[in-house]
């Protein structure tokens, strides 16, 4: 089973030791989401300083793919500006873990891979609506999040 296209060393390692795992008390953004069909379930917490993501954590229950992608996403997003997060694509996340092929090969498991990104986009969406009153950015984000998979 060496050279498994999904369960690479990196995925297994991240699933065992997820990064940025935990809660942020009184986070500026807190968003929960789950995949109703497979049961992956995560909470994402973000703090915003100016226009930057100053801190980000996640916790929840999920498979190795979900845990690894959530970990990598938080690593990639930390320190980015809201504008950069808005433009951040699923391809960027998937390629970081070598999982681009899931889009074609596994319509089931792609949901595990993208749950955290969907949660992030929805979280930022509500932040744009509630705090920044920026409905144009919010609208695009909402649409993107809803159509992620």
């Amino acid at each position, binding site marked *: 089973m060496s050279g498994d296209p999904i*369960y690479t060393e990196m995925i297994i390692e991240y699933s065992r030791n997820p990064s940025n795992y935990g809660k942020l008390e009184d986070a500026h953004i807190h968003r929960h989401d789950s995949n109703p069909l497979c*049961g992956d379930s995560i909470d994402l917490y973000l703090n915003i300083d100016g226009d930057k993501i100053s801190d980000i954590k996640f916790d929840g229950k999920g*498979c*190795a793919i979900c845990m690894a992608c959530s970990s990598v996403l938080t690593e990639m997003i930390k320190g980015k500006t809201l504008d950069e997060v808005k433009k951040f694509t699923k391809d960027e996340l998937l390629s970081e873990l070598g999982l681009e092929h899931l889009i074609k090969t596994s319509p089931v498991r792609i949901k595990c891979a993208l749950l955290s990104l969907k949660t992030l986009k929805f979280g930022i969406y509500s932040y744009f609506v509630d705090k920044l009153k920026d409905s144009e950015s919010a609208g695009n984000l909402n649409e993107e999040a809803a159509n992620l998979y």
Partner: protein
Amino acid sequence: MQATTSSFKDLRNDFPVLNRRVRDNKKLVYLDNAATTQKPNQVIDAISDYYKNHNSNIHRAVHALAEESTEAFEETRDKVAKFLNVEDSQEIIFVRGTTEGINLVAYAWGRDNIKEGDIIVTTEYEHHSNIVPWQLLTQEKKAKLKYIDIDDNGELMLEQLDDYLSTGKVKLVTFSHMSNVLGTISPVKEIVSKCRSVGVKVLIDGAQSVPHMKIDLTDLNSDFYVFSAHKMLGPTGVGVLWAKKEILEKMSPFLGGGDMIREVHKYETTWNDLPYKFEAGTPNIADVIGFAKAIEYLEKIGMNNIRNHELELTKYALDEMKKVPGITLYGTKEPEKRGGVVSFNFNDVHPHDVGTIIDKEGVAIRSGHHCAQVLMEKLNVAATNRASFYIYNTKEEIDVLISSLQHVAKVFKL
């Protein structure tokens, strides 16, 4: 048919899909029978024959095809009645499946009989289909939904039922005959007799029991019993609601439309006789007719032989799985108290990862919450793996399942 291991193996020839190779040319090992079973040629051919030679709507036209189709459809009803030892086949209502059957009762019986403050009792090991319709009903009626908890063995804590019944407010107790996750077989007779003694109605979800054991509805003496054809070799889209005639007669209709009426005037309608009062619209004729062949097939093997075969497989699976380090098994340790369903977790590997990795070995099991999130919460897990057996499964297939777990261990460096 003799109930020997080899004769059960011979059955495999009747199921074309079992010869399939999947993924990297691996032999299919189908262990997801609690979700749906495979179909034998006898069922597939009957459906095909119906469309090729008889297809017609039923119950009205007088032409030859309509007559043949109506007869085959109604013969299935009689066959179902006999299969379950129901004397009056008017008590057999065809629905789309267990889910629709339960919703029918919740809507047509529940809306007339559940009032504010009433209690409906269900259990922690129900499928969502036996929880959500009752949530909808109790919310609408300001009634209460209560749960019988399960103990560490995965068995119902029946003393809680006594407490609920003693309030005098319980109107319905609804539970699955066999848990789709733990395999626990509910103490049906005990529950029914407790409810009978205080005049409380009983609904039993038989989706996991009717396919696997002899069910005698006269003997069980519940008020409602519901199950699906597709979990017992039959087609999808067919299920059965059985209920006592005096209850069905008093019940309001579920869906309004064709076939369920006697006379329709501009502002009022009278209902058709049972069972048609509850079968509005053109039913799933072809699949109901196919279902008859599934019942014939099971009867030929014998339900007690099927139960014994599955018991043997379950014992074997439990024994073998116990030997694998890192496996957590859920449910009672006594095979006689459970059906052919084994839920487990493997070390801390998430069931979706287990499922994906062993799928590459051709092994089909279910990983997830099995539409039983209330139970997952109770077990404090996000999901489990579930292997479930049927007539065509073999001990060799269980060996493949277990050896495929070695791959999981290797991938996860356990």
